């Protein structure tokens, strides 16, 4: 796989040696602290041997820096701002210790797509399925901005198999659990467990927000589903790709079992209305052609099946959010700029306006950037000292982070001005 042809092969065993350097010289404390600046929220650390420390809080950047460098956490999670300093949680009554605010967060994880990707499964990702994440970012980003009016969205690669989004607008941070659930529900279309093969049911007319999602999908669907996944391909072609992943996963009837390894049948089975169109399978020989033929047919069909094509597309690629992560005000989520212990990759920001240029397999690993530190000059042409992270491939990510931060800070300033203006009026 392309991800592995990098010069620096990351070795998980070296993490204990690398983390101290990373936290000493590379972790972007300045902007990081600025981002979380509005108020003493909870941090939790997972240390080397799965020791888990909750309810950390820091009153200034120095304190945060010191603690992180001392502990060298394998994972940092960010939680809510509480009624009391998280550190003091033992001194207050449990009922009085309440989560007050937190960013609205979204977690999209490739493992939730296992039934619709044929290249890998579980925690693995590859260039053939990564487009799912690109589509997810496009759709969720649009809806949060245009529908909900949020402006400060911070997208982050989780370091392995998924992406996170932190919505940092004040309205979002102050949302109740009901509000968070409502937004997550609004954004959820693919529904039903393993006993529900058709997971998308559209009503007529289609809601404007879904309509816009479909427009985004239409630009990418063929390239993803037909070209990359060969989702209407047949068994022979597929054998290499998904091997045993379907064994025992689908509670299909016995009579259909022999067709389990066939993407085409899988697709048709999920959409029983398509079942009778099996003949296109024989007449056309590629996923792309078969898909075009099915679409054409579905345009001619009954009123009751008029969104079949859209439903198929949505079921295959529409973002699958983990609603439980978004719902809770005090749900913890892994912090940006952590290092994923398995892959060694840094959880770097993703620029949602440039998702096609983001390649998860090129995300720097901790070993690579530390190597870069040692091999590049520490002064620029004018002899000024260059910040450590700017010498490494983290620099690009930092630009994305700074851009997000600047607009966030401006909104805070704007708000302060507004407030002081109000005071002047009286």
């Amino acid at each position, binding site marked *: 796989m392309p991800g592995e042809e990098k010069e620096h092969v990351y070795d998980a065993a070296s993490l204990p040696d690398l983390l101290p350097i990373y936290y000493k010289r590379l972790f972007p404390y300045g902007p990081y602290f600025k981002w979380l600046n509005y108020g003493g929220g909870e941090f939790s650390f997972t240390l080397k041997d799965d020791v888990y420390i909750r309810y950390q809080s820091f009153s200034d950047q120095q304190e945060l820096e010191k603690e992180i460098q001392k502990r060298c956490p394998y994972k940092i999670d960010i939680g809510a701002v509480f009624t009391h300093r998280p550190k003091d949680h033992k001194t207050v009554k449990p009922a009085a210790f*309440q989560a007050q605010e937190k960013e609205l967060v979204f977690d999209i994880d490739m493992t939730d797509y296992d039934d619709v990707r044929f290249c890998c499964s579980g925690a693995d990702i590859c260039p053939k399925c990564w487009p799912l994440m690109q589509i997810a970012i496009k759709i969720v980003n649009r809806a949060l901005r245009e*529908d909900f009016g949020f402006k400060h969205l911070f997208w982050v690669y989780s370091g392995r198999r998924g992406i996170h989004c932190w919505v940092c607008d004040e309205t979002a941070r102050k949302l109740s659990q009901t509000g968070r659930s409502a937004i997550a*529900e609004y954004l959820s279309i693919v*529904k*039903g467990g393993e*006993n529900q093969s058709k997971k998308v049911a559209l009503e007529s007319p289609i809601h404007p927000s879904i309509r816009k999602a479909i427009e985004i999908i239409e630009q990418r669907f063929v390239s993803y589903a037909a070209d990359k996944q060969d989702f209407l391909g047949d068994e022979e072609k597929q054998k290499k790709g998904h091997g045993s992943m379907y064994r025992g996963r689908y509670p299909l009837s016995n009579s259909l079992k022999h067709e389990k390894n066939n993407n085409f049948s899988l697709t048709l089975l999920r959409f029983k209305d398509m079942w009778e169109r099996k003949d296109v399978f024989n007449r056309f020989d590629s996923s792309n052609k078969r898909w075009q033929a099915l679409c054409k047919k579905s345009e001619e069909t009954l009123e009751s099946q008029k969104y079949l094509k859209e439903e198929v597309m949505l079921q295959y690629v529409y973002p699958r959010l983990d609603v439980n*992560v978004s719902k809770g005000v005090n*749900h913890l989520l892994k912090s940006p700029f952590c290092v994923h212990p398995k892959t060694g990759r840094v959880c770097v920001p993703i620029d949602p306006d440039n998702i096609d240029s983001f390649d998860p397999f090129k995300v720097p690993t901790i070993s690579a950037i530390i190597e870069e530190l040692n091999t590049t000059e520490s002064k620029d042409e004018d002899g000024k000292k260059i910040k450590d992270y700017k010498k490494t491939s983290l620099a690009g990510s930092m630009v994305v982070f700074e851009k997000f931060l600047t607009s966030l800070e401006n909104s805070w300033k704007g708000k302060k001005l507004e407030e002081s203006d109000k005071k002047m009026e009286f």
Partner: protein
Amino acid sequence: MDFAGNSKKSGRSARNKKQFNRVGHNLQFYKIPPTGEISLQEFEEYAIDRLKVLKAVEVAGIRLMKGSTEYIQKLQDELRKTSLGHDLIRTDKKEDKDFRQKDLVSHFILRLAYCRSEELRRWFMQQELDLFRFRFLREGPDSRDEFLRENSLNYEPISDDLKTELDGDLRAAAGSKSGVVDTIEYFKVPFTEVFDLVSKRKVYLEDGYAYVSRDDMISIVITHYRSHLSHSLAVTTRALPHLEEDGRLLPMLCGLSKRYLGQDFNAKKSNVGEITADMIETLSKKSFPLCMQQLHQSLRQNHHLRHGGRQQYGLFLKGIGVSLEEAMRFWRTEFCKAMDVDKFDKQYSYNIRHNYGKEGKRTNYTPYSCMKIITTNPPGPGDFHGCPFKHMEVDMLAQKLRGQHISKDNVEKISKCVKTGHYQIACAQYFEATHNIRNPEDSASININHPNGYFLDSYKLLNGPKEGTKPVPNTPKVIKVKVEGTGTPSSQTNKQSDLNDMDDDDLIASMETDM
């Protein structure tokens, strides 16, 4: 864009206070707790009356699509059968002081009875909200407007120009009601005022604002009522242990809340004796309800279950009498067919101990009821939890039943129930079919509302009643209460109130992500 805590709201509560000096609207948010004296007998009577009402609301909501004509009809019929409900559905009772007092007092008593656990709170809120919605929609347009005005929830309609501009989007968002867009007024409100429309995607959103039709303004009312109720319940919970002493009330309150939950299956000592890990396989075939059979099978097949499934199945097993040690053995054996022991111990054993109250908040978690399984946390891709009668495609279910050699007639009977939304009745029929019950007398006694109840019934039937099988109800700890002054001062109403209804369930779910 920032409208949480805008200044408009503080203006509202100031105005809200005044209104309580008058008779006020037929409907209310129950902001001011009742004062005065009430006999213990009345206390219980009021509570039971309201409980009957809420039960009727629940039943209609489970069986029928909320808001449908059938639902409204059914609810109306059911409510008429109860004495309080009979008055609650009338819109001309505004001046009837006795009724209003009863409405108010009974609501507050149940608040006390139902504030003590997350599940109780959720149930109470759901039914009260549905009841309120039902009553609100019975009011005429003028009366609704008046209510909105009284509670400062009124907005200006959008201009015709803007409406024309948004026409297509408003129509598309209105769904099947799109025909009425022309004739109806629309209001532009922050989306935070209409969460239930947002969550159902039944409203057009643009740049943080929702365009709400006059018909949907109920949503604003519900959002406010929900947030008020949730906050009040949280406050009541906190106040409960500190309340004055009256040893007679609390047992009664506990008894009241049990009427909804039925038996608490959180058995420490099992009802049927210790069940070891090795017995589970056999029992699963004979005495497990379909939901648990399915979890068991997929666990055996995939050597894994996702979080939702582990919770549902794990707590069920605990409820039938599998000890922590045996549970650990059971899960470890199965999971470790596909992962190393080390990984299991790291990632999953905490979860299991947690369910037995050995970690985190040390709450002794209760097995899920059918209600909970059917109405909350629906399964997503990769999930096998939920109730098959609700969450499985009807064809797939029929196929599965035939596979278990259930007769064609019975399969048809069950499918029919499922299609009309009578999931628990379908489950009872499944029980009958699999336990060879033909005698109609026996069948009348079968009533499924808890997977653990299903198990017990089946076990008893197949093994004959054993000695000591009588369930030992958890005796509630006696805390003493006085009714007065447990309400919330309305000025404190806080939008954030329901933030904290989280258990560390979610925390655990988060711990296994992406590590």
